[in-house]
């Protein structure tokens, strides 16, 4: 049971990451590979403020949000100069920069040693120390993030984001300052990633830079492409699929000496097949 709860919590955290990134990539068409940077900023801010300043989780979460919002605003300003492939490459560059800061600013982040013994969230004296309660907390956050994102996606604002994705120059002719729209959704996506980061730090109770490298951004990108771009339910399904699939493969019964390699192979193969036969993802409406 503990194992299932553990997987459910991880799925919740990655669902939040996926939902946030889907607003940026799926709705707006900005191929960002920097999501793990904001996930990391939220994680580190929460961990540092809880451990070093004894701040409550929910305050630390808000601080993480503020840090992520500022960082994403500045990064978004630079990224708004780029388009398409160049946007992806520049955002990847930012992920590497932020990851390098986590790794090398040792006086603050403890570098590769990471930050251990981060406390669990506490609310009115109740500590979410048991995983089942942490799962409930995570699900509440998933519901909140999902609700806010659906509201944004269904609003006029969301419609403009889709139009930017389809033809940015054409929507400008109708009087839209697309730079501001792109910047706003990039900051919103980063804020949601920060929330996931805060949950991650206090669930695992240990963070180090490896959890926030470029591969993590690529993993979240895989979640939303697999689940379906511009479909928020798809992000949840995608997270569920990509977290559970490798776990399910543990039960296939590969010979123990090649089990790990076989699991990787089958996992990769299934992803390729899915993209071949369902390029719009499991729930998607938008094709890249």
């Amino acid at each position, binding site marked *: 049971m503990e194992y299932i709860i553990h997987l459910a919590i991880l799925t919740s955290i990655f669902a939040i990451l996926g939902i946030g990134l889907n607003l940026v990539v799926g709705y707006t068409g900005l191929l960002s590979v920097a999501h793990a940077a904001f996930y990391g900023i939220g994680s580190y801010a929460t961990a540092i403020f809880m451990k070093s300043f004894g701040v409550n989780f929910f305050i630390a979460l808000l601080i993480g949000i503020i840090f992520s919002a500022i960082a994403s605003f500045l990064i978004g300003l630079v990224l708004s100069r780029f388009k398409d492939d160049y946007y992806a490459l520049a955002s990847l560059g930012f992920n590497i920069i932020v990851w390098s800061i986590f790794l090398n600013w040792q006086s603050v982040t403890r570098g590769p040693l990471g930050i251990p013994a981060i406390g669990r969230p506490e609310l009115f004296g109740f500590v979410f120390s048991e995983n089942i309660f942490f799962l409930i907390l995570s699900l509440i956050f998933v519901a909140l993030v999902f609700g806010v994102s659906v*509201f*944004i996606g269904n*609003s*006029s*604002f969301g*419609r*403009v984001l*889709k*139009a930017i*994705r*389809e*033809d940015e*120059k*054409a*929507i*400008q*002719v*109708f*009087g*839209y*300052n*697309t730079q*501001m*729209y792109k910047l*706003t959704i990039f900051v919103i996506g980063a804020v949601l990633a920060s929330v996931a980061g805060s949950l991650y730090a206090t669930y695992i109770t240990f963070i180090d830079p490896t959890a926030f490298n470029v591969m993590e951004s690529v993993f979240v990108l895989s979640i939303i492409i697999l689940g379906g771009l511009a479909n928020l339910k798809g992000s949840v399904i995608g997270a569920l699929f990509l977290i559970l699939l490798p776990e399910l493969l543990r039960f296939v019964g590969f010979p123990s000496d090649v089990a790990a390699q076989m699991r990787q192979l089958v996992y990769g193969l299934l992803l390729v097949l899915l993209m071949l036969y369902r390029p719009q993802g499991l729930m998607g*409406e*938008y*094709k890249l």
Partner: protein
Amino acid sequence: MKILKIQNISKHFEGVHALSKLSFEIEKGVITSVVGPNGAGKTTLMNVLTGMETFDNGTFVVGDIPLTKVKPREMPMYRIARTFQSVRLFEQMTVLDNVLVVLTERNILSAIFEKHSKYHEERAFGILKRIGLWEKRNELAENLSYGQRKLLEIGRALAMEPEVYLFDEPFSGLFPEMVKKVKSIMKELREEGKTIVLISHNMEIIRELSDHVIVIESGTFLAEGKPDDVLSRKDVLEAYLGE
């Protein structure tokens, strides 16, 4: 009264002069056709006037406002709307959303908490009925026929309720029924006192619709006047038809 003035506008692309000190004026409330052979610079002109391309020199005067630089997003401020030679719809959005996106709030906060959706929806419905795409409102734009796509682009321009319409080849590739529809929309707009700048290769339509014709060749001004007068001039025929 002149509503648009193009004054010595030049534009070049890597050594090719698409527009060379082009100057002419557009009268308010009439249909003015801009004609010329392929490569004359008609679409480039549309693009520089709407900020899709920058122009190198010259001034674009809208009403009394002289502009030396135009940004696409300022078009509604000058009450100008356009269509494109190659249709540019928001392909993976519904027909209704293609119109609604033009109607709704520009301010980000207002757009998030959109308060006027019912009002905007009713306006969008009215436009879709006017262009005959009401039945198609829930289909993706990418699934429309070529003619319907052209109509939807015109619908988006109508949604802006501008003073000046810039129509770039709105009749090309249309079936006769749709040509009739687009012509009637243009006539209605003229009756409403709107200004239309029309680019078309169809001489028959130009003669029928235009109040005034401007001919450009190789990015320069060649002639202007009443359609029948201008289109029978020897230099125009030579430039336009190679006769």
